[in-house]
Structure formats: C-alpha cells, structure tokens
C-alpha cells in the first residue's frame, strides 16, 4: 500500500473534521497554559484550507501540501500558524511532483515537516510543544521502516508514539511558547499543540485504514 494524492486530500479533510470536533477541547487546553485560542486558530485555518482543496484535487501531493501550508500561514496566525504552515510547506517541498508515497517517503516527508517547525520555532524536544508529539512519531516511523514494517503497521506505531509523546508533555515544564511564562505552573497540563499534532497523526491513520 502507498499513500496517494487522494489519500492526502482525504487526510486534510479528516483533519478539518477532527479539528472542528475538538475545537473547544483544544481551546480549553490552551486556556490552562496559554491564551484560549488554539482550537479556534486551527479551525479557522483548516476551514479555509477545505475551500482550497478542490483547486488542487488533481494535483501532485507536493502541490496539495504546499497549498495547505500557505493557506495555514495566511489564516491561522498565532504561533501555530507559522509552525504548521511551515510544516506543510516543507512536507510539500519534500513530496514535490509525487503522486504516491511509500513508507520511506512518508518518513522523509514528516521529518522535513518536523525540521521546518524546529527551524521556525527555534525549539527542541522536551520544551512542551507540538515537537514532543511529532518527534517521537518520526522516530517510531523510522524504526518501523528499518524493521521492515509495512505502511499501516509503521503508521500505527508512529501514532502510538505520537500519543505517548503528547501525554508526556503533561509533566513537562514549558520553556517555549506562551506556556513558558507560567514557569512551574505549566506542569500538569497537556500541551495543546502536541494534542493537535496527535489529532493529525490519527487522521492520517484513519484515512489509510479506511481505504485498505
């Protein structure tokens, strides 16, 4: 099984749905250690992305992902806008002209996204951000690939690692983003960006499982 451009379109549509469903939950997480807008920000962004998808429905995966990226940059704002925007842009650059992705390609694409976030956010793991969910997912994907797992198995492991990474943000002390202002008081709360990253990982798995 490979990831097709059609899967990618469905992946983006599914993210949009899940973000809308979880909007208030994400915002609530952001109330505790931020400024109560993360769900609203992503919902605004992906709702606009959805209107752009028809224009790229027959395009290569790179074009689709770049369109998602530029749209997020132009509509989300806040910290997550440039970060997810850059992530999708870099992922798009790493999949330029491609209509199908193998599990190897996927690892490359997601790693490019991660690097984009880190470059834009000047952040590393352990700072209680979305990176703490995405990083372990990339690691798991690479390990699974090295172990010869197929796409779905690899992705399931990546999603599990992503979830574990998300949950691991709870006891962390934030040192990046708005939550860092809280100092010790940031401990005990799950990071909203790590949570939205996990929603996206789940969405990809959901789409691939459904099309199996």
């Amino acid at each position, binding site marked *: 099984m490979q990831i097709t451009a059609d899967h990618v379109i469905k992946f983006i549509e599914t993210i949009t749905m899940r973000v809308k469903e979880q909007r*208030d939950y994400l*915002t*609530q997480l952001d*109330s*505790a*250690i*931020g*400024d*109560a*807008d993360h769900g*609203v*920000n992503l919902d*605004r962004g992906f709702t606009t992305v959805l209107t752009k998808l028809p224009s790229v429905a027959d395009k290569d995966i790179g074009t689709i992902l770049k369109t998602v990226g530029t749209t997020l*940059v*132009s*509509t*989300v*704002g*806040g*910290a*997550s*806008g*440039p*970060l997810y925007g850059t992530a999708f842009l870099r992922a798009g650059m790493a999949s330029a002209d491609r209509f199908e992705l193998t599990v190897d390609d996927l690892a490359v694409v997601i790693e490019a996204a991660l690097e984009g976030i880190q470059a*834009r*956010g000047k952040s590393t793991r352990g700072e209680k951000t979305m990176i703490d969910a995405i990083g372990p997912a990339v690691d798991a994907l690479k390990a699974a690939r090295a172990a010869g797992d197929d796409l779905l198995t690899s992705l399931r492991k990546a999603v599990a690692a992503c979830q574990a990474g998300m949950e691991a943000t709870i006891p962390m*002390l934030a*040192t*990046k*983003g*708005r939550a*860092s*202002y*809280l*100092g010790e*008081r940031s401990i005990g709360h799950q990071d909203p960006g790590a949570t939205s990253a996990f929603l996206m990982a789940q969405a990809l798995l959901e789409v691939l499982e459904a099309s199996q």
Partner: protein
Amino acid sequence: MKKLINAPEQVVKEALAGMADAHADLLTVHYDPDFIVRADAPIANKVGLVSGGGSGHEPMHGGFVGKGMLDAACPGAVFTSPVPDQMLAATKAVSAGKGVLHIVKNYTGDVMNFEMAAELAAAEGIEVASVVTNDDVAVKDSLYTAGRRGVGVTVLMEKIVGGAAEAGADLAAIKRLAEKVNAHGRSMGMALTSCVVPHAGKPTFDLPDDEMEIGIGIHGEPGRTRVKVGHAADIAAMLAAPILEDLPFKQGDHVLAFVNGMGGTPLIELYLMYNELHKILAGQGITISRRLIGSYITSLEMAGCSFTLLKLDDELTKFWDAPVLTPALRWGY
C-alpha cells in the same frame, strides 16, 4: 459570557468597521487582509512604522495609527497574532522608499509571523527593520522561557519613534531609538479577574473572589503567582519593586510613569494606583516627569492594571512630547 457583540467570529471586523467610520479623517481600514493605515499613507520621505498583534488590546494598535505615531496596524483575531499577509500588505501600503520598521511584541506567534512578513517584503525590495519589545519583568529568565513578553513599553515606543519618524529620522536612527526605548523600559501587570475570549466563551482562568494574579501578560493568560487580594499600596509595591530592581532605576532618575488599565478597571482606581506609584518613586528619589494614565494596552474586559516605567533622557522626552494625532493619543494638534 456577556459581551456587546453579535458573533465571536465577527467581533474584529465589526469593531474595525466602527473605527473606519469614526476616524475616517485619520485612517483607512482595509479588509482581507485586514489592516489599518494612515489616511495619507505613504508619507513621502518618512520611514513607515507598522505594528500589529492580536485584537482585544484596544486601543493598541489601531488606536495609535495617525500623525506622529504608527503608519499602520495589523489586527489579528482576538489574542492571536495576525498573519504575514496582513503585515506584508501594511508594509507595502506605508513604504515610501525610506524603509519600514516593524514593531513586534515578543510573543512566539507575533515574532514568527512578522519574521515571515519581513522576508516577503524584503523579497519585494522593501527595506524592513524589526524591533522586538520585551519589557515584562514578570517573565524571569529567558533561558527557560520564550523570553520576556512585550507589553506597556510598546505603546511608549510607538509614540516616541513615531515622533522621530515624523521628524524625518532614517531607518537606522529609528531602529536605534526603538531599541533604546525598549532598553530603558520595564513593566509588570496584575489581574483581579480573568477575561473571556469571545470564541472560548468562558474565563481563561478561574480566580477565587479573594485572590489576584500577579505577573500577568495581556492575553488573559494566568500570571506567575496567585496571592490574596491586598491593599492598593501593597499591590503597587509588588508591581513596582521588580521593575525598579531590574533596570535598575536609581535615585535621581527621571521617568515616564505609565499606569495602564487592563480594560475592566475604572479610571478612579488607576488614579489611585498612580498615587501609590508616585509615593513609592518619591521615596526612592525618582522623579516622574511624564506620565500616562488610562487603559491603553488591554486584555478585553480584564480587571487589573500594569505599571510601566521608562527612564527618560532629553531625546526620549523630546519625542514623547512631540505632537500626536491618533484616535487614542492626541496632543499638539
């Protein structure tokens, strides 16, 4: 949630429409991307000044667009940094060939979005410099945080560099002056109540009836510590002490004292807090030679206040005193 609004997603656009009609003589509002620009922009031979940030801090920044202050302001969604498209459009609208300064408050989102806009503007051949305000002493150590937040000093910087830009200073001089304002200013804020982000619909944090948050920013985020509500004199001391120590401000200094309301605090309390601050500074031999008292950088309807002190010299005083004609600050015109 009780607010004078129609729908959460319409708040910013509808308030902009109100501003557009109310201040048509001073400014023009553009939509999609949203930005507010001086009615007479671009001004020949003048460095353009652009700022922006989430909405919900009114009158900042839109209320500071006009003669002697900002050329343009980019309002994001409530408490959410605007997007690069806004800053890029605003930068182009005010560019008169002498370069454009971006005045950015130090929040991850603002910094990254302005950074992307500056890259795009540079690609279009506009010289852009940026200055980041980070005056909030409540954020202690930038090794362990995203760095100090930009708060009250931003207002003072916009006024002061606005005066210099109006007087014809070039981009390098403006940037140096902006950095000087930032280097000379420190702030600290507190909240008696949380605020309600329209989309969220409930208070960002819960605060018992007898407690207050010390060291809040301007996004309804919780502060560093929570203590029992005390007397105004004690609150003033809690805000002033870390500010004074930090620069440090010293005996003999002349300062601009800015007592700012967070949006839901009445003016009578701000004057009372100013009185407390005045007593503290007098006790340390520090002279208040300029002051600003009112709600200028707010967090929606949050009750609370912040203090900002700016150490003055002749240059800063001169440009603070320079004429200004904006919806929110006006003198000399």
